[in-house]
Each structure stands twice: as structure tokens, then as C-alpha cells.
């Protein structure tokens, strides 16, 4: 570089010099697969013009375990624990979707008590998933404190899971036809105590971030996507709702016991990272509302429907989807009348949502790519299956 104080070159000449000195061509850089901000093993190839993103390409599949192939070689019941390992931070939701799909295929309905237990645990899991998202997303952007707060409070949810079924993460909480375990002694008190405990904690997270100037500047207007683009790209879940589309499978096509509860679907307007943050925060409060109602009026009765010991659904096919914390999680199951599914297709929300990354980061800065990957809330175990 030319030293301005001793140089006699004019301003114009300096620019000429810079042109050859600094390469102004497009730059291709590689992010991941081993990168702390990609939430697993995601590789993104970025095409850059300086700091500006011109395009991206995602390289995925590093965690591919062939879940759909495994399903064809296991019985219906044996495959149940495998689904927990897709979105491993929301294992309860995965299990619920799978069990309900097979129940539909068998044409049985889980008893009301089982459905209430399912709703309580699934909503607790949604909270746990959103807490993990918030902590890691804030960490990516540079706020370290929320991570400690959310992990501290998420622990209370995992404790309830552990007491209920013995596992904290890959819970295998439900069985085809209902629940295997009755609630433990003091389950309702534990859940109620948790609700009282966690409500002010969510306010606390908001205090840390919602009006925090750094947070607002890093998220507002970043990774914008319109509702129309979301629908065209098949994006669902909080990302779709933050773009102003009021759609939630729990309301549109209620499953389990969701039609019994009073709750709202929070939506955003701008479809940016900040709105997605607000939507998820509001969703956490709605989950509390659902759990509160469910635990108040949990009915007595059996927890398991009459399901044959050997599950052999009649020949046919079914598509069933639920609102997982990340979006629409669907199972398309084809039965040939045998004990093993002929084909299981998982419609993973993370996989489809990740496709929107390119649209969301074009024209933005490299640093925003990190923010957008965080805001999409992907779990690579589910993307790759």
C-alpha cells in the first residue's frame, strides 16, 4: 500500500494501483462442514463479491444414515425409536408424527388420556427445541449469555422427560396406539411447577435481546423472505409464520388433542430474522398456554388403544403430518399388508426450509449467512436422515 504522507501519487493513480493490487474478482469460499455456526455438519459454498453474497450452494448428506431404507427392513414398532434420531432435539414430535401415521393406517385412535399426555410432552419438547434454538442462534450472533440461561431452563424439561420415560433426548416416549407409560407420581405437579418457573424466564430472554441494540441491528431486515416465496419454496413452521402466513398444522388439520385447546398462532410481518425471533418467542408462550390447559383437564382412562401384538396394517398408504418445532413434519407410509412397512418417506421440515437459504442470503453480508442459518433452525440429523 502506498503511504499517503510520503507519496506524491494522485488520488486517481492510487485507485489504478489498487485495481491490480486488490483482486476484484468473485471469490468462492467454503464454510463448513466442520464449522461451529452451521449447527452440525453442513457445508455451504459461498460466492462472494467482497463481503456481499452473490450465491450459495449447500452440500449436505454428511449425516445420512438411510433412515428410510432402515424402515423397510424393520417392523413398524421396531422403526419407532429410529425416528427420534432425525430431529434429535425434538424427538417427541418425531415420535408423535410416526405413531399417529401408523395409527391412521391401522384405523385406530389413541385414547383421550394418551392424547393429552402426548400434547403435554410434545409442547414441552417444542419449548426445549426453541430454547436450544434461541441459545445457539444468539451465540452465533455474539450474545453468549442466552445460551447459559436457555440450557439451564431446558434442563428442567429434560428432567421431566427423564422421570417420565427414562431418557432425556431420544425419548421414544410414545408407542403405536397410545403411550406405554402412565404418568409418574407427581407428574402434574412437576409440569405445573415448571410452568410457574419458566414463564418469567422467557421474559428474561426477551429482556436480554428484544430491545438490545446489537441484536436488533444484526437481525432486523436480515434474511428477508416473503410469504409468497415461502409457499413456493415449501417453507413451513415459524419461518413461514414470520412472513405473515397464519398457518399451523395444529390449527389447520388438528391432530392428537389440539382441537381441545385455546391458543393462537403468532405471526410476523416482515419475514426477517428479527420477526422469526419474535414469532418463536410468542410460540413459546403459546406452548405454555396449551400445556397449562392440558394439565388442568387431563382425563382419566386407558392410555393404550386396542392394537394387535403384531402390527400388520392393511394394504394402503397414508400421509400424516404434524407441526414439529421446525415446521411440517410428514410421514408417507405405504403398507403391503406385511409386518414391515413397504416404504416410509419422511418429509423433513429442516431439509425443505434449508433450501430457502440461498434466497434469503443473496445480496447480504457473509456475517448474515451465520444469522440466517441460525434463524432457519435446522437440525442436520433431520436434513440428512
Amino acid at each position, binding site marked *: 500500500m502506498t503511504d499517503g504522507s510520503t507519496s506524491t501519487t494522485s488520488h486517481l493513480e492510487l485507485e489504478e494501483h489498487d485495481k491490480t493490487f486488490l483482486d476484484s474478482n468473485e471469490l468462492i469460499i467454503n464454510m463448513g462442514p466442520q464449522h461451529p455456526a452451521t449447527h452440525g455438519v453442513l457445508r455451504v459454498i459461498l460466492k462472494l463479491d467482497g463481503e456481499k453474497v452473490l450465491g450459495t450452494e449447500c452440500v449436505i*448428506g454428511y449425516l445420512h444414515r438411510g433412515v428410510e431404507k432402515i424402515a423397510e427392513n424393520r417392523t413398524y414398532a421396531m422403526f419407532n425409536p429410529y425416528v427420534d434420531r432425525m430431529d434429535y432435539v425434538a424427538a417427541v414430535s418425531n415420535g408423535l408424527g410416526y405413531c399417529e401415521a401408523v395409527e391412521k393406517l391401522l384405523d385406530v385412535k389413541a385414547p383421550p388420556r394418551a392424547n393429552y399426555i402426548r400434547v403435554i410432552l410434545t409442547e414441552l419438547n417444542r419449548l426445549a427445541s426453541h430454547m436450544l434454538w434461541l441459545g445457539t442462534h444468539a451465540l452465533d450472533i455474539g450474545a453468549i449469555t442466552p445460551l447459559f440461561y436457555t440450557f439451564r431452563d431446558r434442563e428442567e424439561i429434560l428432567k421431566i422427560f427423564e422421570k417420565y420415560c427414562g431418557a432425556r433426548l431420544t425419548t421414544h416416549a410414545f408407542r403405536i396406539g397410545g403411550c406405554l407409560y402412565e404418568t409418574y407420581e407427581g407428574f402434574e405437579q412437576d409440569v405445573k411447577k415448571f410452568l410457574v418457573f419458566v414463564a418469567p424466564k422467557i421474559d428474561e430472554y426477551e429482556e436480554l435481546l428484544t430491545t438490545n441494540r446489537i441484536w436488533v441491528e444484526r437481525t432486523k431486515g436480515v434474511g428477508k423472505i416473503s410469504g409468497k416465496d415461502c409457499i413456493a419454496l415449501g417453507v413451513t413452521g415459524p419461518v413461514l409464520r414470520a412472513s405473515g402466513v397464519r398457518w399451523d398444522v395444529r390449527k389447520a388439520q388438528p391432530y392428537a388433542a389440539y382441537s381441545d385447546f385455546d391458543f393462537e398462532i403468532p405471526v410476523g410481518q416482515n419475514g426477517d430474522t428479527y420477526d422469526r425471533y419474535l414469532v418463536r418467542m410468542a410460540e413459546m408462550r403459546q406452548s405454555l398456554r396449551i400445556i397449562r390447559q392440558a394439565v388442568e383437564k387431563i382425563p382419566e382412562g386407558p392410555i393404550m388403544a386396542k392394537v394387535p401384538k403384531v402390527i400388520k396394517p392393511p394394504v394402503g398408504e397414508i400421509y400424516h403430518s404434524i407441526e414439529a418445532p421446525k415446521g411440517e413434519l410428514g410421514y408417507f407410509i405405504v403398507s403391503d399388508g406385511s409386518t414391515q412397512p*413397504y416404504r416410509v418417506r419422511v418429509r423433513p421440515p429442516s431439509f425443505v426450509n434449508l433450501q430457502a437459504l440461498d434466497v434469503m442470503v443473496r445480496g447480504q453480508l457473509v456475517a448474515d449467512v451465520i444469522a440466517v442459518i441460525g434463524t432457519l433452525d435446522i437440525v442436520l440429523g433431520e436434513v440428512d436422515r
Partner: protein
Amino acid sequence: MVATLKRQFGSGIGEASTYLGQDYMVVDRSLIPEILQVLRDQEQFDYCVDITAVHYPSREKPFEVVWILYSFARNERIRVKTLIADGEALPSSVPVWPTANWIEREVYDMFGIRFEGHPDLKRILLPEGWKGHPLRKEYGIIQQDKEWVQINLGIESGQ
């Protein structure tokens, strides 16, 4: 809806029925992608939930490709199915729904079904250069591309 479509497309629309409360219809391969376009524009099926395939090796046309569609306005789902022979390609539906891009790549990766007009049809979950399409029925559960594993990972076997 099915009646209108039948009037429009004639015998190209085969079986259209409901199983366990879910609608589906089997259409002739030649109607793809027009029927998808019509479903999106006229019948408001604006959200393509999923595209997948099922392999029936003993059938004359062994692949059944399934489009699962959803309409926000009607709050309804429908499955459109078509049967194709091994090696037969299908027109891509990326122009209809951009979301089909990755989903069709996965169908290609897992079944080897080609989509004509797809902007970038290549493997998505398995590495480039892998041999075989794992969700075909003849592909064994522990089968792998040994050569690829040995060359690229430097180990005898991935098992």
C-alpha cells in the same frame, strides 16, 4: 374437482379415490407437468408438500412417483401419482414449485429417476460418484459402494 379435471384431460386421469379420508388420483405420465400446473393455478394447490417415489420391482412400470400437494385456501391435501418404467424420465416440476428442486434431486439420488429440465440434477445426500440408488428394492440394506469407500475414505469397508 376430479370431474372438472376429467372433463379437461379425459381418460388421462385414471383411478381417483379416497383412502382413509385422503384423496389421491393416478394420472397418465403424459399429463405431467400440465396437470400439476392446472392443480396449482386453477385448484389453488399452491404448496407442494413433497415428491417421492415407491419401487415395485415386479410391476411392468415399476416406479410410482407421488406428488403430495396442499391448498391453503381449501385446507385440503391431494396426492397425484403416476407410473413410469425403469429408465423413463419425468418432466421436472421446478418451474411449477421451486421447492421441487432439492426434493427431485433426492428422488433421483435414491431411485435413479431422472427429471428433465431440472436446473441442476445431481445427487444430494449421497456423494457424487456413488454407484447405485439405495431406495430401490434390489439394493440391499448393508450394500455399499465399496470402491468409493476405499478410494475416498481409505478404509476397507464402511460397515
